[in-house]
């Protein structure tokens, strides 16, 4: 994209207008991040007269990188993010395509679909806790009634089941969000393109891959970006459902930071975990935005 003089003038005006907002963001975002980075470079002792800092460089990072639990929770969080986001994108795409048809009761369907998304995660997690409960849980009761299982299953107590169970609860809750973004994208696609494709005799599958999908790529990228960033902040779901167990198999990186900071009072290593997460997330965001930008450019040209 070449930038001409007029564009530059617009850019300056634009920056002038967003400056107040950026200042607020700097205050509420950059200051805490900066302060956390500062904390992560210090040994911190809590005393009767406040915190005492002594600079120790990257020692806190050396501590956390040397601990298996850190890598394990990073691995869990990454795997969890990838699996849930991919499934949510596929399911979200299917529901968005269905809801984009001029069907009867579409407004009602969209409203109903949004219910899981509007529930506070802690509440929906409690609800899933009742569903998965090994003693009086609904899921076991249904499966036992249908003779699919002979014994109640411990959904949240075995690692091979606890992780997928958490994923199901997450996908149930956030697929509507992906659907909404994709639906908005679908509605922006001009109907003339579909009409042209139909006149050319393209099949429905072909229309999807040749018309819908390319034009929807920015929306898909945006939904994926939002979800990846959220998934890396995973906290409330495992906090309510498993407390990170069994063992530490569902301990997300945010839970690890919480435990170090607020259970153990280890402010140095705890902030080092938090800062590592922020760095990782910013990198992911930049990469995703970069990918998004080229796509937008392609579409415009």
């Amino acid at each position, binding site marked *: 994209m070449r930038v001409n003089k007029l564009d530059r003038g617009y850019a300056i005006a634009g920056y002038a207008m967003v400056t107040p907002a950026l200042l607020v963001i700097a205050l509420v975002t950059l200051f805490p991040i900066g302060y956390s980075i500062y904390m992560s470079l210090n040994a911190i002792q809590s005393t009767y007269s*406040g915190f005492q800092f002594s600079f120790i460089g990257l020692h806190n990072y050396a501590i956390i990188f040397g601990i298996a639990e850190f890598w394990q929770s990073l691995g869990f969080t990454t795997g969890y993010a990838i699996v849930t986001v991919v499934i949510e994108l596929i399911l979200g795409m299917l529901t968005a395509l269905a809801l984009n048809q001029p069907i009867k009761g579409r407004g009602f369907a969209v409203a109903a679909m949004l219910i899981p998304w509007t529930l506070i995660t802690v509440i929906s997690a409690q609800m899933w806790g009742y569903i998965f409960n090994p003693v009086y849980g609904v899921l076991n009761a249904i499966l036992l009634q249908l003779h699919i299982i002979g014994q109640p299953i411990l959904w949240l107590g075995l690692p091979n089941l606890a992780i997928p169970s958490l994923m199901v609860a997450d996908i149930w809750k956030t697929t509507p969000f992906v659907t909404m973004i994709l639906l908005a994208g679908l509605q922006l696609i001009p109907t003339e393109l579909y009409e042209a494709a139909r006149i050319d005799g393209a099949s429905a599958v072909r229309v999807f891959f040749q018309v819908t999908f390319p034009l929807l790529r920015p929306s898909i990228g945006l939904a994926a970006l939002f979800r990846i960033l959220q998934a890396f902040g995973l*906290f409330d779901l495992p906090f309510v459902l498993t407390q990170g167990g069994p063992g530490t198999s569902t301990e997300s990186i945010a839970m690890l930071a919480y435990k*170090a900071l607020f259970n153990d009072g280890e402010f140095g290593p705890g902030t080092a975990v938090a800062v590592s997460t922020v760095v990782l997330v910013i990198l992911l965001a930049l990469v995703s935005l970069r990918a998004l930008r080229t796509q937008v450019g392609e579409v415009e040209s």
Partner: protein
Amino acid sequence: MKQSLLAAFAVVTGLASLTACSSPSSTTAPNPPSTSPAPTSGKVTINWAASPIANVGIRKQLIQLFEKANPSIKVNLISQPSSTDTNRASLITEISGGSTTPDVFMGDVVWPGQFAAQSLAEPLNKHFPASFFTRFAPGLVQGATIKGNVYAAPFFMDAGFLYYRKDLLQKAHLPVPKTWEQLQSEAKTLVSNKMVKYGFVWEGASYEGLTCNWMEYLTDAGGQVFNAQGKPNMDTPAAQHALSFMRGLITSGVSPQAVSVFQEPQAMNTFNNGQAAFLRNWDYAWANSQTPGQSSVVGKVGVVPLPTFAGHGARGYACIGGWDLYINPHSKHMAADLTFINWMTSVPAQTVLASQYSEIPTNATVQNSPAVRAKNPVLSIVGQTNLVARPAQNPYYAKVSTAIYTNVNAALAGQVSVSTALSQANAQLASAVGSSSL
């Protein structure tokens, strides 16, 4: 495009709030607490942070009685989370940030090490005369003493007991079990005769309560968490024996696999619903199981000291739990705080705790009172049990306990073998007490 950039920023902000929480909310240095009592002429309101005690309305009753006896002080109850870890996290956040509330908080008996090291509790011996501490039963003040300072006043004590269904044992002509092996075989008989759904329920979830359960089996088997030199010592034949037995309770069908996600309320409810023959729980489970409306086994329950492994002596071990009263070092109402603690550990308050709610009082006079013992069957068997404390006399106890319960829980869930769990626990214990830990 700009919108999505801003949106991305917003998301990053959300994540960053995690780190933001770690910044101290107040950077101004709070004044060191004055030792001279504040004037109490006007009405003073103090905030008492306490988690629900035994899941009943005990806190409000005590506050009412206190306010009646001390009309110049009003107590505002801040109800804390019932999960001890979440409770501690909220207190650490408030107090390390310099908050002046809560004034007094109820904290676990295993907290003094950490709270002393991180300056989260006011040393009480600087305010109370030495004679104050003589009212407590032996050993309790010592548990709250770190490097010569007493950081908390013992409020009530908990110990683990075995609860059993009298009616079921009678019907099956079985004696009350004295050994763990006997308990296992009797529970098996009851379950296979379809007299009860589950044999034995206890607390096996990945949390502090599992450390308590573990200490009872481990100590009885002859093991320990740290040896005399303070080195981690959990990878031993005794520990193998203890953990294999616990896992065996699940694999033999005596305990449901669900115990590996049970905390006290789940175990208690299962027993109260009549679904289990045996229950390991704290002293308050007595009152809890005998409350009509919340329990369907009223009058059918017996309580005895926990069993022992065959050939390991006459009686088992009970983990000491319980709660202390601490003062926030930033409190502005030190004199009222002390009055409150003084009253809460006095004979009238402790009598209410012990006779109405089957808690074990810390006040020695009340503990030994025949009138109270008559009303509290648990109290009369406390003397028959061996007590074991958790290894909490250090600032790292939170990490020590995490190393224990996450690994024991992993073995209970069948995620790792017993020996892997123990060697992992040992390695994590070593790093917990070392300098390079998280």
